[in-house]
């Protein structure tokens, strides 16, 4: 089940988040909704991101595929080069660089979609007044009374 509560300021939200996590609620069970990005201290709600690693991996993989593709394309035609190398690494360098960057761009977009969960099925977002912050907690039936009490205490 879900419990939601609106907060008018960041400070009381941070206190609520700390208390909730002390009670055993995990960051996975918490969602904060706002019309603007909220800068929260790591200690309040940790949301580790692997986007940088994914982007670097994506870029390297894409770049290697490009090298392979260009090598294959240049060798697939029996051109007479008069002894010159058929595959020129340095001349292909620009294509390699640009498409490696394209790989990192596409990976950034894909990882953004993954980490944001935009295409995942999820419970509908609660409605909250413009400019305020809304906290949603996923909890069990047993936890519900204590969490409700805590939220009420912090959002006053």
């Amino acid at each position: 089940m879900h419990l939601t509560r609106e907060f008018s300021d960041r400070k009381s939200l941070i206190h609520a988040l700390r208390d909730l996590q002390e009670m055993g609620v995990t960051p996975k069970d918490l969602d904060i909704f706002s019309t603007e990005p909220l800068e929260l201290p790591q200690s309040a709600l940790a949301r580790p991101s692997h986007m940088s690693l994914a982007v670097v991996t994506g870029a390297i993989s894409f770049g290697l595929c490009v090298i392979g593709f260009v090598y294959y394309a240049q060798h697939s035609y029996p051109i007479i080069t008069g002894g010159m190398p058929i595959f020129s690494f340095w001349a292909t360098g620009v294509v390699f660089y640009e498409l490696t960057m394209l790989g990192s761009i596409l990976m950034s977009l894909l990882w953004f979609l993954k980490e944001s969960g935009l295409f995942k099925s999820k419970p509908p977002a609660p409605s909250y007044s413009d400019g305020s912050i809304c906290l949603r907690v996923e909890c069990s039936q047993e936890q519900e009374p204590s969490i409700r009490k805590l939220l009420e205490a912090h959002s006053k």
Partner: protein
Amino acid sequence: MATATATTVSPYNEVRSDLWRPLSGASPRYLAILAGLAAIVLWGAFAWSYQLLHGIGVAGIRRPVFWGFYLIDFVFWIGISHAGTLISAILRLTDAGWRKPVTRAAEAITVFALMIGGMFPIIHLGRAWLFYWLFPYPNSRLLWPNFRSPLVWDVTAISTYLTGSAIYLFLPLIPDVAQLAKHATGWRRFVYRKLSLGWTGSDREWNALEHAMKLMACIILAVAVSVHTVVAWDFSMSVAPMWHSTIFGPYFVVGAIFSGIAALLIAMAIIRRAMHLEKYLTPHHFNNLSKLLLLMSLLWLYFTVSENLTAWYGNEPKEMNVFGAQLRGSFAPYFWAMVFCNFVVPFILLGIKKLRTIKTAIIASITVLIGMWLERFLIIIPTLSFGRLSSTWGNYAPSWVEISITVATFAAMIALYLIFAKLFPIIAVWEFEQE
């Protein structure tokens, strides 16, 4: 220009209603301007159709000047595209607070300028329907995709930059369109809802957006610099007089940022006036961008002097033919007009603090755009007119087809910008709220 402090931020609802106001309705004046621009674009489309029907011979390009207006426009528009993403990325990475009202306006310029610039090589091909031969894929057509050709490098560089810029424009637009979807009605609601990708404003989404924007800013900076360097290499990789230069890459990048800032200043002034956004686009923003424009003007002069002085000192006969034609021959009026537009005007109007106002910044920006177009003209035409063999020297005169297509692209740029500003908030609402 008063060096005012950054904008005093209004309460949430006021900011939103101010920035959303221009989206509702379309005044008769707006529609009339759009209709006028559409007419010019249609004329340009007619000119291109005429060229497709009768062949590339209807353009003014002839041996030895086989690169004309199309390639000048290509380099010019790719340069303009450096306005947005590059400036926006630098300001985002340095966390410059005053960037907030500027970034989206700049990013939109990039995407539209790239779309327009990217069309010119296709127009220049003549047989435009064979453009896909530029894509390097294994030779089923028994064609050799020459990866050593800087023109193939262009295709990859511009495709990457366009993809990156479009994503860089789209990502920070998502929270705004999600908000718009909540309040809009009819077809707008449908479009905004689709574009918002189901954005709810959760902290997971905000975190992912923040990470993605930071990474994209780093990537796009590297791509933007490489794109104009690759465009410069189209010229410098050939052993033609005044082209085979080691500083062409950075020279082109500096020129691109220079013209990009000028385009951004003009766009901002139009938006400010037409959409009554004086509260958000303040003299402070114009002052900061004017200083950047002045800095780029000085850098441009440095590169121009460096490039020409080296050629003059070397006194290589083939280069001196081109050099002489530019400085005191048939191209001299264009050369000195370029220096006047790119250095004299911005230096006086923006260098003297008392003269630096929004109006003078716009005058300087317009002259810079003219000057930078002339610079592209002077890089391409004189070198091809005065080649290594004097027996092949020739002239170039653009035809009505080339002039029409050039004018139409300017109209297309303005029209695309006007339509974008009518559909989406030209200033990121959520970024303003964040303050």
